[in-house]
């Protein structure tokens, strides 16, 4: 059986790991390669690096980081943040990234995903949806870290991206992001029943039960979290134990104690 994945996310700025609540109040802490190795040893199934650098040399810094991580890490990792073009993607692929996560650029130019799928294959493409809630209660995409709303329905865009050749959907529930109140199970359910490609749940992880609910009730194929792992509130092994106890298939890595 295909295991449900647990994916720690590392927010990276200027080549260093940081973590902010709702993308604000960032504090520098941690060497990405060290953290990647630690998460791998703890049984992470995959890693995600989200670049939040704003400076003009961000791309160079990120490519260097990816190359360092790729030399040390032998589980898959995804890189996201500000990826706009096929050239951006190619540079990260060549540096050793297994996948890229594309958000705003896919919303601005949905055809980018079809071109990228044709060029690099679907396995390389995660499309990231930052989903807010419109005044009428509908779930619609946002941009700029949730500050600006659009009129694009999340479920429509997820279908469009799956058809265009996205390999996976990274579903960020902006209502939950940073709250530790649990993943948005309703939104997960809505998207995971609408598309056949895997869904990665993101936003709201607080307790081990949240991970179980995202998979069992929301239909998530993978669960992503940053601060609960980064600040040591939860260990990956205890999350996996809880998932296994709930009957969810999880990977038991070779050589990792449990």
């Amino acid at each position, binding site marked *: 059986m295909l295991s449900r994945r647990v994916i720690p996310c590392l927010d990276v700025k200027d080549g260093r790991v940081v973590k902010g609540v709702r993308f604000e109040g960032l504090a520098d802490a941690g060497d990405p390669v060290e953290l990647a190795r630690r998460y791998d040893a703890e049984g992470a199934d995959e890693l995600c690096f989200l670049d939040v650098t704003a400076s003009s040399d961000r791309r160079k810094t990120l490519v260097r980081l990816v190359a360092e991580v790729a030399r040390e890490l032998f589980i898959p990792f995804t890189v996201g943040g500000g990826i706009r073009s096929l050239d951006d993607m190619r540079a990260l692929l060549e540096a050793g990234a297994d996948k890229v996560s594309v958000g705003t650029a896919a919303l601005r130019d949905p055809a980018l995903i079809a071109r990228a799928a044709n060029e690099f294959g679907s396995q390389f493409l995660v499309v990231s949806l930052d989903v807010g809630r419109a005044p009428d209660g509908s779930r619609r995409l946002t941009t700029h870290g949730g500050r600006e709303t659009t009129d694009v329905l999340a479920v429509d865009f997820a279908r469009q991206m799956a058809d265009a050749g996205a390999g996976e959907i990274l579903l960020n529930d902006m209502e939950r992001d940073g709250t530790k109140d649990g993943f948005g199970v309703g939104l997960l359910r809505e998207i995971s029943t609408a598309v056949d490609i*895997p869904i990665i749940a993101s936003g709201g992880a607080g307790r081990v039960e949240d991970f179980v609910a995202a998979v069992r009730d929301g239909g998530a194929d993978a669960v992503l979290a940053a601060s609960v792992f980064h600040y040591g509130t939860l260990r990956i092994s205890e999350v996996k134990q809880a998932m296994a106890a709930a009957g969810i298939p999880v990977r038991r890595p070779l050589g990792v104690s449990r």
Partner: protein
Amino acid sequence: MIAIVDYGAGNVESVRRAIAHVGSTAVLTDDPSELARAELLVFPGQGHFAQAVARLHERGLAEVLRAHIDAGKPFVGVCLGLQLLFDRSEEAPGVAGLGIFPGEVRRFAPRDAHGERVKIPQIGWNAVHCARAGTVLDAVPDASSFYFVHSYHVVPDDPGVVAGTAEHGGRFVAAVARDNVFAAQFHPEKSGAAGLALWTAILGPRWWGRPC
């Protein structure tokens, strides 16, 4: 010499890094004469079946791979590098594969036997069950998890070549082995400790009867 066939089909560099991590050196090349000199050939691949076949033929590599296998030299296929060893694929009707293994490559069915939806592509970790003893999979415990990314899987005519299986909407072939050829649908270079253990075994003296 260990050579990795670099024919423009996906992230082959990660294979080189994994081999380096377990202490061997491999060259990435699409030069037929260099590939012909290799002791061990690693044949990775991601992407579309038809494009990969076209790229192999453009570079004159199909014959090189066949000659290597016919000479009894160790050969390791990974992912699309497994699928390309078969006769044909549903991904590219009418396009001939290398035909090293009789059989075809099929897309996962969208529903399983109970009518449950099957996620395609399969992306993630799945437990690989050894189908028989005596293959390089002996190097890892039975049911070790490996990382898969694929929408198609191989269906050999001869079930005797199956080395390992896994479950995704039903049982599918995760690895094949015959004589000097081992090929896996999963990515040992992305499968953490289990994958590195497999590379160590692949590159070690025991499996092929001599060091590579």
